[in-house]
C-alpha cells in the first residue's frame, strides 16, 4: 500500500511526507501499561495493557469518534491526551510537537487547549462551589480574563451552553443531569480550547436529554471551530457526532474510517459484530442476519497472541492465531484484519 493511503487512514507521523501541515493532535504508538504487583517481594510481575501501541491522528476541526467496549482502552487514551494519565510508551504530539519535551510553561498553555468533558457531570463538579465560581476558576487560574470581567465571561459561557444566567449563584446539585452536563461543557469551553475530549458525555443521560446535549456539542463545534475526540460506547451518538470513527479492541485499534463508510461497510469482523449487536429501534428488523459474538472479551492483562480478536472471531484461521495483522486499507478506511469483510 502506498504511504499516502496509510496516512489518510491513520495520519501516522512515520509516513507523513515532509513539509505537510501536522494534524492538531497525533498519537504515535501510544502505550499505557499498568503493572500488576504480586508475590513475596511485591514486584510488578505482569501488566495490564490498557493501551498497547495506538497511532492515530486527530485533524483540526474534525470530530473523531472512538468506540469500543469497556476495558478496550478508549478512556485511557482520552485521559492520556489531557494529561490525567502518563503514557508508558509512545508519543503524544500536539500541533506536531512531542508534548513530553514541553517546558512547564508550554505544557500549562497546551493543557488549556486540550479540555475534557466527563461522563458523570455530577462527580466532576465540586459540589461545594457555585456554578459561577466553578466556571470562573479556570479563567482565574490561567489568567484568561481580568478579574472584574470574570462575571461577564461566565454569563457569556452560560449563554453559550443554554443555561439561564442566574445559574451563577446555584450549586451543581440544584441542576438536572442534562443541565450539569451543560455546566461541564461550559467549564471545558472556558479556556477556549482547540480540542475537547468528550468521554462518554451522554451515556449517563436520558434519551430525550441526550439529543439536546448532542445537538449542543454539534453547534458548538461549528461555532468555535472545535476539534472533538468523542469517546463513547453508544454507537448512535458516535455516528451522529463523528466525521471519522476509530474502533478499539483490547488496547489496539482495529479499524479507522469515515463514519458513514465504516458503519455502512465495516471491514473488521469486530466492527461488524459491534454494529450488529446494537439494538435497532425498529421491530421490523429484529430477525435480521447478524454476527453474534460469544462470551466476553479476554482480559487486557493477558491478551491473546496473534490477532487479539481471534478468540471470538467467527472467521478466525490459523494465521490469525499466529501473527498479528497490521492496520491497512485505502481511501482513508483501514482495518487490522487478514481477511477484511
Amino acid at each position, binding site marked *: 500500500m502506498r504511504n499516502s493511503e496509510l496516512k489518510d487512514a491513520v495520519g501516522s507521523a512515520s509516513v507523513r511526507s515532509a513539509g505537510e501541515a501536522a494534524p492538531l493532535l497525533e498519537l504515535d504508538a501510544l502505550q499505557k501499561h499498568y503493572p500488576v504487583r504480586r508475590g513475596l517481594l511485591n514486584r510488578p510481575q505482569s501488566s495490564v495493557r490498557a493501551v498497547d501501541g495506538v497511532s492515530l491522528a486527530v485533524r483540526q476541526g474534525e470530530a473523531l469518534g472512538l468506540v469500543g*467496549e*469497556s476495558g478496550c482502552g478508549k478512556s485511557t487514551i482520552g485521559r492520556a491526551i489531557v494529561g490525567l494519565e502518563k503514557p508508558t510508551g509512545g508519543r503524544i504530539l500536539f500541533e506536531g510537537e512531542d508534548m513530553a519535551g514541553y517546558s512547564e510553561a508550554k505544557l500549562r498553555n497546551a493543557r488549556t487547549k486540550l479540555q475534557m468533558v466527563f461522563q458523570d457531570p455530577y462527580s466532576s463538579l465540586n459540589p461545594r462551589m457555585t456554578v459561577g465560581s466553578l466556571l470562573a476558576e479556570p479563567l482565574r487560574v490561567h489568567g484568561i480574563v481580568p478579574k472584574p470581567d470574570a462575571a461577564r465571561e461566565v454569563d457569556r459561557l452560560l449563554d453559550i451552553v443554554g443555561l439561564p444566567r442566574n445559574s451563577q449563584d446555584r450549586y451543581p446539585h440544584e441542576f*438536572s443531569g*442534562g*443541565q450539569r452536563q451543560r455546566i461541564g461543557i461550559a467549564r471545558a469551553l472556558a479556556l477556549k480550547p482547540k480540542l475537547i475530549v468528550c468521554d462518554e458525555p451522554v451515556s449517563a443521560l*436520558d*434519551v*430525550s*436529554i*441526550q*439529543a*439536546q446535549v*448532542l*445537538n449542543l456539542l*454539534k453547534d458548538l463545534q461549528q461555532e468555535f471551530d472545535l476539534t472533538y475526540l468523542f469517546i463513547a*460506547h*453508544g*454507537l*448512535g*451518538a458516535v*455516528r*451522529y457526532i463523528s466525521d471519522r470513527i476509530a474502533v478499539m479492541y483490547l488496547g489496539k485499534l482495529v479499524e479507522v474510517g469515515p*463514519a*458513514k463508510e465504516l*458503519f*455502512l461497510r465495516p471491514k473488521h469482523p469486530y466492527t461488524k*459484530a*459491534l*454494529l*450488529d*449487536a*446494537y*439494538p*435497532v*429501534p*425498529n*421491530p*421490523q*428488523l*429484529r430477525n435480521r442476519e447478524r454476527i*453474534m*459474538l*460469544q*462470551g*466476553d*472479551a479476554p482480559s487486557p492483562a493477558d491478551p491473546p497472541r496473534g490477532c487479539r480478536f481471534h478468540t471470538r472471531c467467527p472467521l478466525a484461521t490459523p494465521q490469525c492465531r499466529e501473527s498479528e495483522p497490521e492496520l491497512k486499507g485505502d481511501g482513508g478506511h483501514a482495518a487490522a484484519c487478514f481477511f477484511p469483510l
Partner: protein
Amino acid sequence: MTSLLDVSHLRMAFDTDRGKVVSVEDVSFSLRPGETLAIVGESGCGKSVTALSIMRLLGKNSRCEGGEIQFEGTDLMSLSDADMREIRGNRISMIFQEPMTSLNPVFTIGYQLTETIRLHLNQNKKQARASAIEMLRKVGLPRPEAIMGEYPFALSGGMRQRVMIAMALACQPKVLIADEPTTALDVTVQAQIMSLMKGLCEESGTAIILITHDLGVVAEMADRVIVMYAGQVVEEADVFQLFENPQHPYTQGLLQSIPHLDGFEEEERLVSIPGSVPARYSQAEGCRFANRCSLASERCRTQPPYAYVEEGHAARCWEAEAASEEEEAYA
C-alpha cells in the same frame, strides 16, 4: 386470552423528608401468559417502582394508596408476608440492572443458586445441586460444576447476569421481571443476554416484564409496550403499532431523538424534547407532558383521559383522542 397479571389503577406513594411523593399514579396494564411486555421510560418515570410494587419489594417508606395487582386471581397487595414470599422467586422472579452488585459477594454461586431452589422446590441438597448445575448449563456458562464453587467477584458482568437469570428461572416462574437487565453491560454481551433470556422464557412459557429506557431493546424484544412518563402510563401498544404509529407526543419525541446508525445527512439534527420532567409532577394538574409538548393547547390544562385509539393501542393525550373520535366519525 385471559391475563396472568393485572395491574389496575396502581397508586404508590413515598414518605420522604420533604413530605409525601406520589411516584406512580393510575398505572394499569395486564400481562398475558408467555408474552414479553416492555415498560419503557426515562429515569424517574416510575417504571422501576411499578416493578418493585409487583414484587412488594419497596421499602418501609412506601405505601400503596390504591389499585390492585391481581396475579392468577389473587390480589398480591392483600397477601400475607409469608404467602408473598411463596410467590417471590418462585412464581414471579426478578433480575436487576447491576449484575456486579446483585449477587452476595461472600457466598459462592452454588450456594446462592441452591438457596433459591431449596427454598421453593422441596429438593434435598444433592438434587438442588444437580438442578443448579443444570440451570448454569442452560444459561450457557462454561464449566458449570467449577462455577458452582466460585465467588461472584471471579465472574464478569455478563456471566453474573447469566447467574442471575439462572437463579430467576430455576423455579420456572410464570413471570420474570427484568429491570434494565443489560444497561450495565457491553453491547455484544447485551445481545447475548437478551437472546438467552428470550429463548429460555419461551422454553418455559415464562412471561417477561422488561423494564428499559432503550427503545432499541424494546424493538428487539417486546411483544407489547407500555410507555411511562412522570409516573403515568402515557401510551400502550403492540410493538409494531407503537413504532409505526406512535400516538403520544412524548413517544413520538422519544423515537425521533434516538440517533440511528443508518446515517445522517450533513446538516441533519436530532429532534430533541425540550426541557425536562417537572420536579413535583404528582401535584401538577392537567397533562404532565404539556410543558414540553409542541402540541400543547388550552385543553391540556385538564388531565387527558387514557383512551383507546385502536384495538390494543391506548394513549393519554387529547390529540390522540381527537384522532380516534375523527375515525369514529368517519365510520
